[in-house]
Every structure is written in structure tokens, then in C-alpha cells.
């Protein structure tokens, strides 16, 4: 458990953690040893010579004072280490999450990661603050007391000692038998959390089907599964808890019976037997609390395992000796990329000379957006290479690569904050004037003027308070501010209202000027601005050339735009 904790934490916390555990152990041993002084005290008090008790009582008082000092120190240390680790853990997790490949972030991850980062992490870190001290004391104090008993009376001591292996065996067995149930339960929790988020986000559409509450079967089934799993966990834990209690109680009964027998036989003094029974009662209580603490520890352990799994997921490897690309031409060299069991890009080769614009056109699912993601190294290719300025993107450090690329996504995700913060993301160090200039160039200034609060207006979760076109403008301003030599553009698919459309096109035009551009295009008007066009289907380049040249060829590309022409009304530009 502690080993796992230390691994998850990383080496920098190991020493503090070890020191705390050592302190807790010493405290528990001192507690157990201090009880040895009860034997002479009680012998005097019960044996009819109470005045003999005072010196021993004074010694016991001194031992208690020492214990109190240790206990106070170790309690404080536990809490302090706990919060320090919590902070370290959050940072480790946050930084790690940001480095994991985009491919790792599937549909279920939002629920999983949010549970992990909030409750999970706290529970895992609570180990040291709340659970470790009681656990160590519940284990070490009884053992010390048994040693003390053994020193005074070997028969009763041996009887008490019999508990040790049984308790240890039961603890180990319970841990194993509940691990499966815990894991299963966690799976169900995760599933349910994902369903709840889905249920909330899909409310409008669910209501059309009248699928709310219990009528949304997917959610209700997930909730029922959670209940079933929690029932199974109880069933898995109960035998261990009952077994532990049964053992401890049986041993206590045995000590009681044996003590009564020894006292009746006259072999051992009544006062000694009674003292040992008092000590035995002191053993039983902490041992009985073990099953409770054990359950909580297992819960924390399960969270640790999950944290460990996430932290051990490899981010895309960073080059050992990063190369800085000197030019900004782009190249796909026989690239194959598989994702989710499907070959998305299939042996594709393409070149974009520095300063040129390539438009990528093709039906949905052709792999257009993936092409942009590979350039930005959101994933690594399965075969072939993606090169920037002749350098494989895997040879470039993430930071250097990202510094050279500005991306305008199709779905603009804005962080819940002000417009200014979202624009500034492009270049946090930019001056006030540069931010304003980028906003003006993206025609974001018009939006800002209209919004109550202006620059300080909040955009809402995911940018929900802005319209699609307005979000696009923010994202273009962001990219303009970044001023990177390579621009990747995933053209917004929704039709914007005319005002927004004009603004967005204007902004994009400014963004593309003088840069190497790859754009996924859905409109003929956009394509016409490109130097070359690549028509993609099934992850391959089917046709490549200038727009007019391809139209003239009358192939797939020409056919693609013909659908548009066949629509009622004029074809879109």
C-alpha cells in the first residue's frame, strides 16, 4: 500500500512519508509499552497495598506524557504530509493529463477523469492524513501489548498471540476477495457518471423522445448496475469483517476462560489475571476497528491503483535530442494511421511547399481532420512520417512544434473565462496592443462592443454564451495573436449568418497571409483561395491539383461539387 502510494507520489515525497510512518509506529509501540506499567500498578491496587502504587503510577504518568508528545507530533505530521502530497498530486495529474495523446481522450474519459481528480485523489491522499495513523496504531499497539502479556504470563500470552496469524490471514484474504468487487463497482460508477453527463447534455433531444428520468433506459440501467455492484461489494466484504470479529472475540473468550481457569487453580494471582484481562480488552478494541479501517484503506488503494494507471499511461515520447526545423514546408511521407480499429489514413503522401496553401476536400470520414491532427502531432503515425521543414515531427520537441503551428478548429472550444483570456491563450506574453490588434483583425472587436462587459465578458462553459460565428472569431484572433508560420484550418462546417461569415472569412484571410497553410475545406469559395487541392477519400489522396484543373478533369472532385450544384437554388460559393 505504502509502496504504491510512494510510486504514485514520486520520489520527492518518499522521505517525508517514511518519516511520518516511522513516527506513527514509534508512537504505537510506546503506547503498548506504557501498558506494561499497569501490571505493577494494578498488582498494588488490587493486591491490597495501594500506597505501593504511587511510584509506578508516576512512572506510568511519565510514559503517558512521552506518548502524548509523540502522538501530537505524529498527528500533525500526518496531516501536513497529507496536504503537501495532495498539492503535488494535483500538479502531477494535471501536467500528465495535458501531455497524454488526444487519442487517449475517448468518450468515457470526461466522467472518469473528473471523478478521479476530485473524489478519487482526495480519497487516495486521505490515507496519510486520516487512515494511516489509526491503521498503524490498530496493528502495532495490540502486538506490543501481546508481547507485554507474554513477558508477564506465557500461557495467556501465547493464547493472545494465536490471534496474530489468523488476523493477518483474514486481512490478506479480505483484501483479495474485495478487490474484484471494488473494481467492478468502480466500473459501474464510471459508467453511471458518463451516463449522467450524457443525460444532462442531451436533455433537449431526450425530451423529444419523452426519455426523461426512468424512461431513459441507458441511465436507469447504469444506476441500477451501481446498486447491484454496491450490493456485491457488501457481500464480498461481510465475510472478512465477520471473520475478523469472530477471531478477535474467540481469542478474547479463550483468554478469559484460561484466565478464569488459572485463577481458580490458584497457579496465578487474581490481581495478575485481572490485569492481563484488562490488557487483553485493550488489544481487542483496536483489532476490531481494523476491518473498518481496512475497508477505507482498500477504497483508497483502489483509487491509488487508478491514479497509478493514468500516470503510467505514456504520453507521446519526447525526442532525446530535439531538432529545430528551419523551414516551414510540410510533408506526409507514406503515412498510415489507425484509430479505433479503422485505418483512417492509408499510405498517404503529400507535400506543401513553404508559404503555399493546400485545401483538403472530401466526403465525411475521409480523414481530413485527422490529417491536421497528425501535423500537430495529436497522434503519432503508425507508419511513414510527417515532416515539418524536413524534420520528422517526432524529432521536434512538443513546445517547439506547437510554437510553429496555429490551429483553428472546427468546433471551437473556449474556456470558461473572459474573452480576453481566451484570446490571450494564443500568446500569454502579448502586449495589450497586440491583443487588440489581433481582435480587430479577426473582427472580434465588433462582438466585444456588443457584449455587456466587453473584453471582460464571460464566455460560459465551452463558450456557450457566444454564437458559433462569434466563437470562430475568438479562435481566429487567438491564432492571429500566436503568429505562427504554419496555419492549420478546419473550416467551420455550420453555415454562419452572413455577417459572421463575412467576418470569419476576412479573419481567416489575414491569418493565412504569408504562411504555410493546410485547410480542410467545405466550401468552394474557400477552395478557390488555395494554391492546390487534395481530394481525400478513405484515407488516400484520390486527386490532386489546382481547383480549375481538377474541375476540368471531371473526376471525383468535380462530381463532389456537382451534388451541390444539383441542389435547388444556386450553388454555394
Amino acid at each position, binding site marked *: 500500500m505504502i509502496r504504491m502510494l510512494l510510486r504514485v507520489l514520486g520520489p520527492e515525497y518518499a522521505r517525508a512519508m517514511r518519516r511520518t510512518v516511522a513516527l506513527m509506529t514509534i508512537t504505537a509501540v510506546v*503506547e503498548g509499552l*506504557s501498558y506494561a506499567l499497569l501490571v505493577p500498578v*494494578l498488582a498494588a*491496587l488490587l493486591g491490597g497495598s*495501594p500506597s505501593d*502504587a504511587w511510584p509506578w503510577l508516576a512512572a*506510568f504518568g511519565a510514559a503517558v506524557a512521552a*506518548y502524548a508528545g509523540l*502522538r*501530537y507530533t505524529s*498527528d*500533525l505530521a500526518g496531516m501536513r504530509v497529507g496536504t503537501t502530497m*495532495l*498539492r503535488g498530486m*494535483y*500538479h502531477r495529474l494535471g501536467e500528465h493529463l*495535458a501531455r497524454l495523446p488526444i487519442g487517449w*481522450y475517448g*468518450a468515457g474519459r470526461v466522467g472518469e*477523469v*473528473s471523478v478521479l481528480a*476530485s473524489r478519487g485523489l482526495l480519497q487516495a491522499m486521505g490515507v496519510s492524513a486520516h487512515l494511516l495513523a489509526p491503521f498503524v496504531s490498530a496493528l502495532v499497539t495490540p502486538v506490543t501489548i501481546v508481547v507485554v502479556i507474554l513477558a508477564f504470563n506465557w500461557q495467556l500470552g501465547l493464547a493472545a498471540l494465536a490471534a496474530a496469524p489468523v488476523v493477518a490471514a483474514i486481512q490478506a484474504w479480505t483484501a483479495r476477495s474485495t478487490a474484484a468487487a471494488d473494481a467492478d463497482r468502480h466500473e459501474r460508477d464510471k459508467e453511471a457518471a*458518463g451516463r449522467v*453527463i450524457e*443525460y*444532462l447534455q442531451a*436533455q*433537449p433531444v*431526450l*425530451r423529444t*423522445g*419523452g426519455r*426523461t*428520468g*426512468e424512461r*431513459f433506459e441507458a441511465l*436507469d440501467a447504469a*444506476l441500477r448496475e*451501481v446498486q447491484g455492484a454496491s450490493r456485491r461489494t457488501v457481500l464480498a466484504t461481510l465475510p472478512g469483517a*465477520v471473520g475478523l*470479529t469472530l477471531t478477535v472475540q474467540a481469542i478474547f473468550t479463550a483468554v*478469559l476462560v484460561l484466565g478464569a481457569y488459572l*485463577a481458580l487453580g490458584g497457579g496465578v494471582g487474581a490481581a495478575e489475571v485481572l490485569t492481563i484481562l*484488562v490488557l487483553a*480488552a485493550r488489544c481487542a478494541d483496536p483489532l476490531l476497528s481494523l476491518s473498518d479501517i481496512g475497508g477505507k484503506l482498500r477504497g483508497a488503494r483502489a483509487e491509488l491503483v487508478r491514479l497509478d494507471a493514468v500516470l503510467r499511461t505514456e504520453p507521446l515520447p519526447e525526442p532525446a535530442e530535439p531538432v529545430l526545423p528551419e523551414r516551414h514546408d510540410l510533408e506526409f511521407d507514406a503515412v498510415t494511421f489507425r484509430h479505433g480499429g479503422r485505418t483512417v489514413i492509408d499510405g498517404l503522401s503529400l507535400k506543401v511547399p513553404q508559404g503555399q496553401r493546400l485545401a483538403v476536400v472530401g466526403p*465525411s*470520414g475521409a480523414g481530413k481532420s485527422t490529417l491536421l491532427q497528425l501535423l*500537430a502531432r*495529436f497522434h503519432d503515425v503508425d507508419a511513414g512520417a510527417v515532416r515539418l521543414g524536413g524534420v520528422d515531427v517526432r524529432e521536434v520537441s512538443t513546445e517547439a512544434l506547437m510554437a510553429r503551428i496555429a490551429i483553428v*478548429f472546427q468546433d471551437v472550444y473556449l474556456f470558461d473565462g473572459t474573452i480576453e483570456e481566451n484570446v490571450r491563450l494564443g500568446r500569454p506574453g502579448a502586449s495589450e496592443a497586440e491583443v487588440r490588434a489581433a481582435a480587430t483583425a479577426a473582427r472580434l472587436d465588433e462582438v466585444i462592443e456588443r457584449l455587456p462587459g466587453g473584453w471582460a465578458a464571460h464566455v460560459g462553459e*465551452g463558450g456557450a454564451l457566444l*454564437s458559433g460565428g462569434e466563437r470562430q472569431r475568438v479562435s481566429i484572433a487567438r491564432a492571429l495573436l500566436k503568429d505562427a508560420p504554419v496555419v492549420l484550418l478546419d473550416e467551420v462546417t*455550420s*453555415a454562419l*449568418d452572413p455577417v*459572421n461569415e463575412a467576418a470569419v472569412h*476576412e479573419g481567416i484571410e489575414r491569418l493565412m497571409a504569408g504562411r504555410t497553410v493546410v485547410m480542410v475545406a467545405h466550401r468552394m469559395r474557400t477552395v478557390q483561395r488555395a494554391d492546390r487541392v487534395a481530394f481525400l477519400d478513405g484515407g488516400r489522396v484520390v486527386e490532386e491539383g489546382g481547383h480549375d484543373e481538377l474541375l476540368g478533369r471531371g473526376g471525383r472532385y468535380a462530381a463532389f461539387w456537382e451534388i451541390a450544384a444539383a*441542389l*435547388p437554388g444556386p450553388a454555394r*460559393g
Partner: protein
Amino acid sequence: MTITGLARESERPEPLLRPHAGSFAAVVLLQVVGAVAGLAPLLAVAELGRVLLSPGPVDSGHVWFVVFAGAAGLFVRLLFTAASSGLGHVLDGRVQLTLRRRLAERLGRVPIGWFSRRRTGELAKVVGEDVAAVHPFIAHAPGELVSAFVVPLVSLVYLFTVDWRLTLITLIPVVLAIALVPLLMLPARTREQEEYDAAMGRIANSVVELVQGIAVVKAFGGAERAHRRFLTAADDFVATFNRWVRGMSAVAAGMQVALSPPFVLLVVLTGGAALIASGSIAPADLLPFLLLGLGLTAPVAALGHGFDDLQAAGRAVARIRDVLGVPPLPEPARPVVPQVHRVELRDVRFGYEDGREVLRGVDLVLEPGTVTAVVGPSGSGKSTLVRLLPRFFDPAHGAVLLGGADLRDIGSRELYRRVSFVFQDVRLLRASVADNIALAVPEAAHEDVVRAARLAGIHERVLELPRGYDTVLGEEAELSGGEAQRISIARALLADAPVLVLDEATAFADPQTEQAVRRALAGTAGGRTVLVIAHRLETVADADTVVMLEDGVIVERGSPAELLASGGRFAAFWQANRTGPHPAGPHPAGPDLVGPGLIGQGDEPA
């Protein structure tokens, strides 16, 4: 004060939990019997002491009876506490399910508009974690409360019967610890507690954001920049947590020392030695205090940590209650079933916040079998207007009528059977493609689903998926944005509702999707009433009526040709946007904004 505070906390969840009161009482009762029986072995040791230390010959029969009674007590304790714990956990599972169902049911009935002001992360936390936080209340509270209050009380009564002076001495550590309790309950502590919860909520939100915005983080972030918000939230939380712990820890550690067994034993032994030495009590009477005296500290010890959980549960229940307390969109007592599908808006006013009206008195009639196009600049209220039809919101003033009946008088099932919509934010469920398309019509036949998919131009793509229509989206396959939009169009086509509300912006992922929308719009021959937010001139040209919205009021309405010819606001609006600045150099030659047949379309002025 602390005890009443506790009682208040524990009472809170009750109304929510009332249906389970019977089982809960059984859990408590079993726990009481078990815990009190657990005192038997300790009493047996005390009794043994009396027998063994009494002068004269030892009654061995009595000794063995006492030993047997102690062992029997242990067995009863085992049986009853195990039963109580098992039952408690089962009950807990049931209560959690009930609460989550109630929450889901309520969230399914609150106005959609309510969601726009809430964060998904926070709400999901209420349904997930906050409900889970009642676990200690149901599964552990009976045991904790019984061992914290019932057992000490029984012990205390027994000890008083043995010797009242030593009983009072035994209570000294408890009094010491209680003296420290107020320090844990200072207003500052309560405030820190609330800050702690708030900080936790911020972490949940920032994580949702980090994960959903990961692409942006990657593109702009490097490792340390863009996920700063998460780290800030985390630091914030740790700082709050630290403050909370720092405020508590010294006091809590002090309490722990005062309540620790060695300290209690020291006090009892010192007092006992004095009393025995002065001959006030028999030596054997010291034993019950050594054995039971430790138990007297339980209530205060529990206050120190065990009730953290209960207090957290109390706060969680308060949040659950808040959500359950949100008034749902009222359902009519006597639902009206509209017979015709004429939609009418009468002097409709609406605003998201007080004092800022988005719609300022809109009158509009949509005749069956016609297409009405809404146009207007950004922020004119178009999106709000169309969202009133599927009753995402109720108007603040005026009424929306369907077939002469106020929407508020139509049952929601009935309403959604009649009004379907395709809006901007497409949400696919993690379910099969077929289920996603048949969302509004779960009983639809497979061939109908396929027909809708064909019309929406997504059928071929679906067949390419690993398991065709049975492919679970989000698990076995991901769809692109355009494909998702076509699924949502297929949804609306399958629903085949007599009233269709459409935000055209959704529709133009690619030519195929646009074609699908055109087909949907064309299907109005059967008398469908269509309201569309139009962005394309061709859509406007095909509409029967155009409504020009500006700043929440209708400034012009009429047939497209008539409006364009009259040279009013609408004409100016289109003209302005058509010739808007295009520094891209020569405007692409596409005939995209001038509908050649528009004027000559022959729509007679009404």
C-alpha cells in the same frame, strides 16, 4: 451546542428518506442490541474481579457462569452488528438509487433554459458524488451513533451505580476534550468548510473543461500553460484544505491526546488509587472503570472525525434538495390535445435575466403547410424565438399556441410528438446508431430508421461502421461533426412531427447534409408547419413567409419577393451582407448570394 448541531444535521435528510424509515429503524435497533451485548465481556471481567478478589473461598460455579455470559454477549454482538451492517448497506444502495432516479426525473422536467446557467460538472456531481455522500449517513451512522451515544450512556449509568465519585473522575478527559470542541465549530471553521466544498466543485469543473478542451490545451498549451486553470483550481483547493486542516489540526490532535486510552487510564488509575488508599471504594470496583471508562470518550472522539462524514452528507443532501426544489416546467392538470397544427405567438415577451428582454412583443402566425424563415442580425433573438416552440422556455408574457391551445396546456409528451427540432448543438448518445435515430420514436420499425437515414444521406456511412446500425457510437465508432448532424436530421425526419423547427446553421456541414435538410424542408406537402432560422438566400427564397427580426421585435414580414422589392430593412440587410467587406481580393465569382429567380418567382403580394 454541538449535540444540537449534530441533531440538526442528522434530521435534514429525513424527508427525503422517509420511505425508508422502517428499514432504517431496523438497522438502528439491531445495532443497539449488538452494541449493548458487546459490553457483556467487559462486565464479565469486572464481575470476575469481584468474585476473585472477594475474601473467602471462590464460588467456581459463579465464575464459569460469568465467563459464559461474557462469551454469549460477544456472540450476540457479532450476530446483530453484522446483520445491522449488512442491512444498512443494502438499504444504502436502495436509497441511492431512489435519490438518483428522483434527481434524473426532476432534471428531465426543469426548463431547458435552466441548464444554460448551470455547469454540467456541478450537476453531475450532485447526481453522482453528492448522492454517494449519503452512504455514511445510512450505512455507518447507526453504528457510529450507537457506539458514540447509546453504549457510553449505558456504561455511564452502570458506572454511577458502582461509584459516583470515580465516575466523575473518569469523565475528566471527556470534559477536557469537550472544552476544545467549540474551537472546531467556530464560524471560521464552518466558513472554511463551505469554501472547501466550493473549491472541490471548481476542481470538478476545471477537469471537465481540461478534458473537453484538451485539443486547445495541446495546440496552445505546452505542458504548463493552458491547463493552468485546473492547477489554479487545485492549488486553490489545497490552500483551502490547508487552511481548514491548519485551523483544525492542532485542536484535533489535542483532543486525540486527551481522549487516548493511556491518558484516560492514567486519570482513572490516579483517581482510583486515591479512593482505594482512602478506603472509599473496594479495589475490585476499580475494574469496571478501567474497562468501561474508555468507552465514555466515544461521543467526543466521534465528534472529532466521524461526524465529518455526516456533516458532509448534510451538505450534500442540501445540494440534492436544491436540485429537487427547482420548479419543473409545469405540466397541465387537464392536458389539451391540439387537433390542428397552426402555431401562433401572441405578444410574446421573454428574457433570460430580469431587465433584459430578448423578445419584446412578438406576434407571429405559422400556417400548416408553410415554411416561415426568420432572418436577422446576430443577437436579434432568432434562436430564442424558435426555442419557445419546443418549450425550452415559457414566455414571460403572452403565449405560444399550437392548434389554438397554449403550449402550457399541452402535455409534454403530446407536445414533443408534434414539435421536432434540429438545433446547433448536436448530441449523440452513447447508444447504437439505430437508437440514436429512433430517439423520439423508440418503437419505430427498422426500415423506417433506414429510410430516415437514407433521406438524411447517412445510410452509406452507417453501413461502413463495424456493426452497421447496431454500432454503438462513442464506443465502437466516432462520427465526424457533419455525420453527427445528419444523424440529428435523420432523427427529425423519422419523428415526422407536424411542426418542424430548424436552425439552418446546423445544416451545412457539407453538400450532402445540406441536401438532407432541403429534403426535410421539402416534405411540407403533407401540411407540415416549418419555422427555420435562415442563413442562405435560397432558403429564404423558397420560404412562404419571411420574418425579419431586429432587437427582439419583428420589423418586417411578408413574402420574400415582396420584401426584397419593397426595399425596406430586409432588402437592406441582405444587400449589406452581400457586399460586405471582402478583402480577399476579387470576390469569388460564385452566384452564391444573388438568387437569380428570386424576384421573378411570382409570389403575389398578399
